[in-house]
């Protein structure tokens, strides 16, 4: 049956849809991703690298010769590196606590670490603006400094380290460190000579992700940075919308794609090592036992949750500070009926309605394409599935702005789609598809071939086997994927800024516009809307965590 070489993937692949059906199952996601992802990417490359006269690499000379743009490129790398180092330094102790110990409320706290990560970056930016901005509570204005950007990046990447390193750490045999201790190593030396080297692949792959997320940071830098604290991502947007310099924007996008490619290659290398590394044990977390542990565990947890909780708590509290004074629901009431002069001609209620509409369509698209892709991955030969897997996952690495910008310059052929509202949910779905595939694929691949064989010996046709066995087993993970796609769509900002029409703003667009208006009423409305967005995405996470953990213990 199973050689164990590649998990549960059966050697003999049954084809529940016949040969034609299987081709169709691959073709639809392939065409979709080809037209909406690969083609715009190629268009950016062509636009950036060529002029009508031919190859044009001079534009890169111009960029590197421009002091501002050179500064942007340097700052992009520098802040990403700093963000990565800081996130590791702050996240590793918490990763250790979650990997090694049990404590009351662990499940809830574990889900809570995920909230900042899935929170729309614009909400994170608003929270830090509220905390440390010009109208900040502490009277300190850190906007336009490196520090506030780093604080925000560490805030939402924290979960990446805790989950990415922590889950690997949990499977490292605790006896390794014990053995080192009995052989004469102090706790620190045991960590440095044994645990740390074993953790290296997980730390490296996680660092690559954090670097990538900070490297392509848009909402946070747009809101909290300034001209000298800007990323390539923001600069692409600025060159496009403020200066209409599509050539410079394209060239910048090409530079960024190259950077992303390098980081992804690095990530892939170590991710493979993580997966192939020894998995010694089922995790066996225990209660803190020694005196040191009893001090360290609560201290680390408290520190982590103050850092993650305070910005959000203060955001919620601030949403009740009324522009007219006192505390109450005024900011929320304004969402229903905000005076136009404050609202920059964006009605909050229609932004909410738009976001819900786009998110619903985005979920449907992401599910259809994602499920077809996951099915194709499961039922095609290994070579095809490996290649296809990389292709499906690529939108995850591409930056939001690249996707939006690509739509803008590419999708006028064969029909001009650029003014069509359908582009918004399609852009959102592109980011959601990898999550759907990643949620559904393990469940689908985990369906044991014996079950299918049992069904067919009991008289089920291949199609009925699929419908009665495979489809039933993956239902829960489909909901997980849908919740991800929904949360992503509700919060998506970078791509939407390029393709949203003034008449059809989404919640994040509205928040951004309000923050740009003077006065307490729009600021309050932005905060109230951020809180709503936070609750919506928080609810999605809760659903993901509940459904996800239940499907694990199936």
């Amino acid at each position, binding site marked *: 049956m199973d050689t164990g070489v590649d998990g549960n993937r059966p050697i003999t692949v049954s084809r529940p849809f016949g040969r034609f059906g299987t081709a169709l199952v691959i073709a639809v996601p392939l065409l979709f991703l080809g037209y909406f992802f690969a083609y715009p990417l190629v268009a950016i490359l062509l636009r950036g690298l060529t002029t009508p006269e031919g190859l044009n690499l001079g534009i890169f000379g111009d960029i590197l010769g421009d002091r501002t743009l050179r500064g942007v490129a340097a700052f992009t790398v520098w802040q990403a590196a700093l963000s990565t180092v800081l996130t590791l330094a702050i996240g590793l102790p918490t990763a250790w606590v979650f990997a090694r110990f049990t404590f009351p409320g662990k499940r809830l706290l574990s889900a809570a670490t995920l909230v900042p990560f899935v929170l729309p970056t614009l909400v994170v930016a608003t929270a830090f603006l509220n905390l440390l901005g010009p109208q900040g509570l502490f009277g300190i204005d850190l906007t336009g400094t490196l520090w506030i950007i780093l604080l925000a990046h560490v805030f939402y990447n924290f979960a990446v380290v805790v989950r990415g390193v922590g889950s690997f750490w949990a499977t490292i*045999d605790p*006896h*390794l460190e*014990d*053995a*080192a*201790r*009995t*052989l*004469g*190593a*102090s*706790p620190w*030396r*045991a960590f440095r*000579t*044994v645990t740390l*080297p*074993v953790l290296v692949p997980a730390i490296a792959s996680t660092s690559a992700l954090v670097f990538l997320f900070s490297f392509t940071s848009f909402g946070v830098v747009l809101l909290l940075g300034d001209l000298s604290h800007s990323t390539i991502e923001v600069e692409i947007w600025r060159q496009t919308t403020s200066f209409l310099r599509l050539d410079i924007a394209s060239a910048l996008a090409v530079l960024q794609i190259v950077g992303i490619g390098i980081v992804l290659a690095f990530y892939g290398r170590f991710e493979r090592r993580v997966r192939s*590394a*020894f998995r*010694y*044990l089922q995790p066996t977390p225990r*209660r803190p*036992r*020694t*005196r040191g542990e009893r001090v360290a565990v609560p201290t680390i947890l408290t520190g982590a949750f103050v850092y993650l909780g305070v910005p959000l708590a203060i955001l919620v509290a601030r949403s009740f500070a009324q522009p007219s004074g006192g505390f109450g629901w005024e900011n929320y009431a304004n969402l229903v009926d905000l005076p136009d002069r404050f609202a920059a001609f964006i009605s909050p209620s229609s932004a909410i309605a738009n976001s819900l509409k786009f998110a619903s369509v985005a979920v449907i698209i992401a599910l259809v394409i994602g499920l077809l892709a996951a099915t194709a991955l499961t039922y095609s030969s290994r070579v095809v599935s490996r290649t296809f897997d990389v292709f499906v996952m690529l939108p995850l690495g591409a930056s939001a702005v690249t996707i939006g910008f690509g739509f803008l310059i590419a999708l006028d052929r064969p029909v001009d789609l650029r003014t069509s509202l359908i582009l918004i949910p399609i852009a959102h779905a592109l980011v959601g598809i990898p999550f759907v595939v990643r949620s559904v694929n393990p469940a689908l691949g985990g369906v044991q071939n014996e079950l299918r064989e049992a069904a067919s010996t009991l008289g089920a046709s291949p199609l009925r086997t699929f419908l009665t066995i495979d489809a039933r087993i993956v239902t829960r993970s489909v909901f997980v994927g849908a919740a991800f796609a929904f949360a992503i769509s509700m919060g998506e900002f970078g791509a939407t800024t390029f393709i949203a029409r003034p008449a059809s703003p989404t919640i994040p667009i509205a928040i951004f516009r309000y923050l740009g208006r003077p006065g307490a009423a729009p600021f309050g409305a932005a905060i109230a809307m951020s809180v709503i967005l936070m609750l919506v995405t928080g609810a999605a996470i809760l659903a993901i965590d509940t459904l996800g953990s239940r499907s694990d213990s199936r």
Partner: protein
Amino acid sequence: MMGATLSHVSVSYGSETAVDDVTLDITSGERFAIMGPSGAGKSTLLRAIAGLEPLASGSISVAGRVISDLPTHQRSVGLMFQDYALFPHMTVGHNVAYGLRMAGVPPADRTRIVGELLHTIDLDGYADRPVATLSGGERQRVALARTLAPQPSLVMLDEPLGSVDQLLKDDLIIQMRDILGIVGATSIYVTHDRTEAESFADRIAIMRSGLLVRVGTPADVWDDPRTVFVARFMGHRSIVDGGRIGAEPGPTLIHTDAITIGHDGSIPGVVRSSSFRDGAYRSDIDLAGGIVEVSTRHALEVGSPIGLSIDPAGVRPLLVDEV
């Protein structure tokens, strides 16, 4: 005094007592085994001696030095783990040399000592191999060598043959015994397997629910287990009510070699089962006050009545366990 002394050692997990007031003297160079069912607290006791679990009370001294207040790495107590815990990112040589490195032994001496140890465990030339390439038996020996390399004052082995094939066990246990003899180490061997403990140890202890319930040489403990639990754990099957065989009432152990079949004044019983095992037919005889096992050259007919006589020299009264 060399060797190791535990006095009134207790370890607890919250309200649960994992090791309960254990007092024990192990002499220098002695091979000592602790056995008991899983969950008895054996591994916890070893971890407490190594400083990996905090003591609730009591003190531990090894080689004349009180170690219970020292951190693990200053105790000079070696612990070999059931899963070996070989460092996966290091070669065999670096694994064995790890303790020497921590002790600050110069590289040249490290290489020499590692070479000697690899020779002792019959793995010459394995120094540069990654541990992932080793077989189960090889891993076991490398783990032993790594534990011995820094010459700890006390060597502790936690189920060291737990994951080794039964067929290999007998060889490995003798090998381990010999190696520990060569280096003259004081050692504690923890296992749930009686035969392992017996073939390894000079003295054995039986642990139950955190308590050491019996300590002695394997022969002493076998001959007079003193409690029903120890008797059962040592593999005795003939435990009856003493009143049925003319002894004091209460649980009583009859050694199998003290039972003979069909003499005058014999005690009546019924054959319940009879099967061939370890070179003879073993039959369970129901004495209506317990079952005894007899060993015969031929099978006995199940259901037939039988008379037994019992040599009083092979009868041991037992206490009922408190727990």
